[in-house]
């Protein structure tokens, strides 16, 4: 895994827009320990985007793209929603599926990739909003988990249909009144993390995106577990500041407020036994690697 596959033809290098030159020069493709700390030091796999100023979803996008363990061999599957406005700016292969279809597309894609590239690790990551994951696409979401399809599903939960003006979604909290749902939600927020666990997901996390290091950890874990064992699910709170009446600067505080232990986005994690074993093995390998590096450094000094 490296930048070998993204070389610009030497004779046409000078006419390539600088974005592409920068990607080749300083993006983190192939970097083993890539993570959110690369943001600002290297060319990001997303730079400009068309989301609203201060949108927490854009933060989430940055952290996720910085944390993918294998971006040059990852295909992301998106669905209709605010996320689909960002994908054209992303330097990772991606497919826009029909609304709600994302997990079905990802199932076929993952299987096809394993047949087409038997010797190479290819990751598939679904990234969709709560409407696509829980309402319109719930059937496809669940069926993929039942079948133990080996890919990660990430849900950007903003608790409503944001880019169509604020309609009620299954993940909206009970009693919430939105611009296009004036009566208020009559039933509880769907407990998808619990449903995911019962449906066969090996790693389930619910959290906000207020802490980049946490997002880096959970994204990496989810992708590695889905690669080796089976489906994984992340539900990330990315509030729509416009639809909940906040200003651009208030997204982060909204997430911090919502992740307190008594709040609805308190950190929740479920790890299956095989996944626990894999994580332990990964941790042991990391430790070994760090110890070897430390020894090498001390020998050098």
């Amino acid at each position, binding site marked *: 895994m490296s930048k070998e596959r993204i070389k610009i033809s030497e004779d046409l290098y000078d*006419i*390539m*827009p600088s974005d592409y030159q920068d990607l080749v020069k300083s993006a983190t493709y192939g970097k083993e320990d890539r993570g959110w700390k690369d943001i600002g030091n290297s060319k990001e796999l997303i730079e400009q985007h068309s989301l609203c100023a201060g949108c927490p979803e854009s933060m989430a996008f940055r952290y996720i793209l910085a944390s993918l363990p294998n971006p040059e061999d990852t295909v992301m599957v998106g669905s209709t929603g605010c996320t689909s406005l960002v994908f054209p700016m992303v330097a990772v292969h991606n497919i826009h599926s029909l609304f709600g279809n994302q997990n079905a597309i990802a199932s076929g894609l993952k299987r096809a990739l394993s047949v087409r590239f038997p010797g190479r690790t290819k990751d598939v990551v679904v990234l969709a909003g709560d409407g696509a994951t829980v309402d319109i696409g719930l059937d496809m979401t669940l069926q993929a988990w039942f079948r133990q399809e080996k890919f990660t599903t990430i849900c950007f939960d903003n608790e409503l249909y944001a880019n169509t003006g604020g309609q009620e979604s299954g993940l909206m909290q009970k009693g919430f009144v939105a611009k296009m749902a004036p009566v208020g939600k009559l039933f509880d927020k769907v407990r998808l993390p619990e449903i995911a666990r019962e449906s066969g997901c090996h790693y389930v996390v619910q959290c906000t995106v207020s802490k980049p290091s946490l997002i880096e950890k959970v994204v990496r874990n989810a992708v590695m577990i889905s690669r080796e064992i089976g489906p994984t699910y992340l539900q990330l709170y990315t509030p729509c500041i416009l639809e909940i009446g906040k200003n651009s600067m208030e997204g982060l505080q909204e997430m911090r407020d919502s992740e307190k232990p008594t709040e609805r986005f308190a950190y929740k994690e479920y790890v299956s036994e095989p996944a626990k074993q894999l994580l332990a093995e990964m941790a042991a390998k990391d430790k070994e690697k760090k110890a070897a590096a430390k020894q090498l450094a001390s020998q050098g000094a």
Partner: protein
Amino acid sequence: MTQYRVLPGPEHFLPPSAASMGICLPNPGEAHVNGVIVPEERAYEEAAKQFLMAKVPTIFPGPLVLWAWNEKAAKKATAVRHLYNTLKECVQPGQTPMLIPMPDYRPKYPKINPEVEINPNHPNLTIWHNKIDCCMFVGVHCHQANLALKIIRGGTSCYTVAMCAQAGHEDAMLSFRDASVEKIMKLAEWVRKLKGTVQPRLTSAKSGASN
């Protein structure tokens, strides 16, 4: 046999696909000029003539040559650069050859500068702003080339040439097929051969825009 000819536009907002009007693709060793199948040699001559006549002859290399996917792609890129350099040497004062990349097919809002890169979804903007009156697509995936060629024919008077690595393009005014390094170099040779024999046009491309 169809009477329809693939000519410089502006044809109209939604021009028909040339294939639906009965234009056929050439067989190996052939090309088409305005939808009429001709021997490849004839097409080299015509393409070189169109380049030398144009006020702003332009090459649009696509991702298949911009990126060094393999050795062949890198060699094609070298040939494209050679063709561009030859054009620069062979045109007369007042003519401005250009080499504009098509690095991405996705809409890049709000970032794209249509004058420095061309996007198949809005090729007419690049043609209009740079006043391009003759262009050649090379290394562009066929489905995107078809789309862009049709939009250019619909909205501009630009003469389009396709140097296609597959079976050619009906929607171009002139199309080669099975493009290779040798074919691109041969076109450059023809440009050199016809240097000084063709009178350049004095006006640039007409716009089909109503505003």
